[in-house]
């Protein structure tokens, strides 16, 4: 059989086999992933989207540190029940400053894409320190250490903003110089709260048709 004799060559030559695997396994990515990554339209911010403030960025990095996204999604699907429950469905342009994206894959707790402005800062403080104080049946862990730690205790906010600036986030050098001062006197609890309050903000800013 023709095809078998062709394969005979492949399986007798390790270089050819490596090459074959590389070529065959690359096709999908080249056709399906690369065009989107190269298309700036898929990376452009939506009209109302603001870049994260230093405090919000600090909060977001703490959210990543604690892996909040293992339980909370940030993606409202365009389904009736989901829009009813959480708010307007998610759009590509909302995530332009999300490195990495935090959509998550498991909703052990509720979606947070529209949580900004839904509760007061005081509610978030209470909830993060003792979830069961506000939601009796909650299975969320408590995060008491957030209140005890100063925001940016590693003194790295400027370095982090500079890295993001390199990646194209619209931070000016003045923004970066001013950031450490803005975080002074803040705790990690303040930072996470500020980040949560920022979620979905661009949707509120945008006039809904």
């Amino acid at each position, binding site marked *: 059989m023709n095809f078998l004799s062709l*394969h*005979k060559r492949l*399986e*007798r030559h390790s270089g050819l*086999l*490596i090459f074959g*695997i590389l070529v*065959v*396994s*690359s*096709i*999908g*990515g080249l056709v*399906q*992933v690369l065009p*989107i*990554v190269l298309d700036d339209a*898929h990376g452009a911010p939506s009209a109302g989207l603001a870049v994260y403030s230093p405090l919000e960025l600090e909060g977001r*990095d703490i959210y*990543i*540190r*604690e*892996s*909040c996204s*293992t*339980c909370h999604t940030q993606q409202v*699907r*365009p389904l*009736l*029940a*989901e829009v*009813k*429950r959480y708010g307007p469905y*998610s*759009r*590509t342009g*909302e*995530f*332009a*400053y999300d*490195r*990495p994206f*935090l*959509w*998550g*894959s*498991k909703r*052990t707790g509720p979606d947070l894409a529209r949580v900004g402005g839904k509760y007061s800062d005081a509610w978030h403080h209470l909830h993060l320190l003792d979830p*069961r104080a506000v939601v009796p*049946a909650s*299975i969320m*862990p*408590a*995060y008491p*250490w957030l209140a005890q730690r100063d925001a940016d205790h*590693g003194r790295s906010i400027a370095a*982090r903003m*500079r*890295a993001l600036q390199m*990646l194209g986030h619209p931070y000016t050098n003045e923004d970066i110089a001013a950031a450490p001062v803005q975080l002074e006197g803040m705790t990690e609890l303040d930072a996470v709260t500020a980040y949560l309050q920022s979620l979905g903000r661009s949707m509120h800013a945008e006039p809904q048709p």
Partner: protein
Amino acid sequence: MKYEDRIVTAFTGCSVLWAVLGMLAGVYVAAELVWPTIDFGLPGLSFGRLRTLHTTLVLFGFGVSGLIATAFYSVQRTSHVRLFAPGLAWFVFYAWQLTIVLGGVSVMAGWNAGKEYAELEWPFDLAIAVAWVSFGVVFFGTIARRRMEAIYISNWFYGALIIVVAMLHIVNSLAVPATIGKSYSLFAGSQDAIVQWWYGHNAVGFLLTGGFLGMLYYFLPKQAEQPIWSYRLSIVAFWAFVYTYIWAGPHHLHYHSIPEWVQSLGMVMSLILLAPSWATMVNGIMTVSAAAKKLRSDPALKFIVLSLAFYGLATFEGPMLAIKSVNVFSHFTEWTIGHVHSGALGWNALITFGTFYFLVPRLAGTQLYSARMANIHFWLALAGVLLYVLAMWGAGVSQGVLWLSLDELGEVRFSFNDVMAAMKPYYLLRFIGGLLFLAGAVLMAFNLMRTFAGRRTVEIAPPAVPAARGLK
């Protein structure tokens, strides 16, 4: 020239250790969902960090160590030569184990790149890349010096594992470092999501599926003492598998903010994937069926046959979950977790256990310490995985239906918190299932340790066949 088998022993030992520790972390995380205060306010025990530790230890500690152990064992035997560059192979060993140890500690300390199954920060990403490429050099170097003409099927799968995972890891880890423990992804938002699930799904595809199929193709025929049923089928299935898997990633992003055509393409390719997946299963089952008698007496073979059944189940369930109208219900729910563990426990863990029960006595030059213990392990594992998966199916289908349910007035019928509270009994069942599964793994660790303690030094030399003609 003897086979270099001490490195196989070393990787096997570490794999068993990571299995126990990683599943212990899994059981603990499962318990935290039932009793949320048992982290005692300690950051390192907090659910998010511990869950990340769980996936890192089981996938990269247990899974990859087991794959490298069996790849090094089988590539020497199928090539009839000693491992190429044993010094480099030992470098791979130390680099990999150190990465898991320090990486695990770093996750507990809060270093996290924020991408699923790629949470380790950039210094570890570099270490992984170097170790992985070295693994490839040792593996392909051995194949290049083989004294057989044909490269055996198991090596194609291990080869695909090495090549494709290198490609995925390097691209998905591209990032700009800000500090030693913090970097930002080169990609943002939707673009990052598409790259991440190209990586994530194919880490599943080429590691949890392809890599372990390499294990299957070597150890199943060995244990069954039968040749592979259809060689031609294995060729077709291999290339279809390598081609198709890469396209399927977007089924993790159905109804998300990515283009519709990407989702639909991902769905169609996932459905097609059923064919090569099941072709391999059929090939395996037909191979064993010729040795059905041995099945009754050999605990190792029992594990492998059961793992094939779960492989069939997970690769049937997967394409079903990839259908958009099913995914609407399953996505974000415990159903996904059930699917994951029917694959991870039922397929990956069971085939590895079976392989170790076969491998360790041979490495030790002796008999398995206790076949009875291995049989008890078999039933503990089966009970554990069934309890786990059934509980998560029940939980997941309930969540999927209740979350989307609207009443006559068009309002959502159930509050999120009510549905969450209803999960408690399922979480408890899953915890018990996990505990049984872990108990079995601990029993295995003991059994294998005792087996190895009674070892007689054996070094096995490649058979003295003349090198085949015309070899490159």
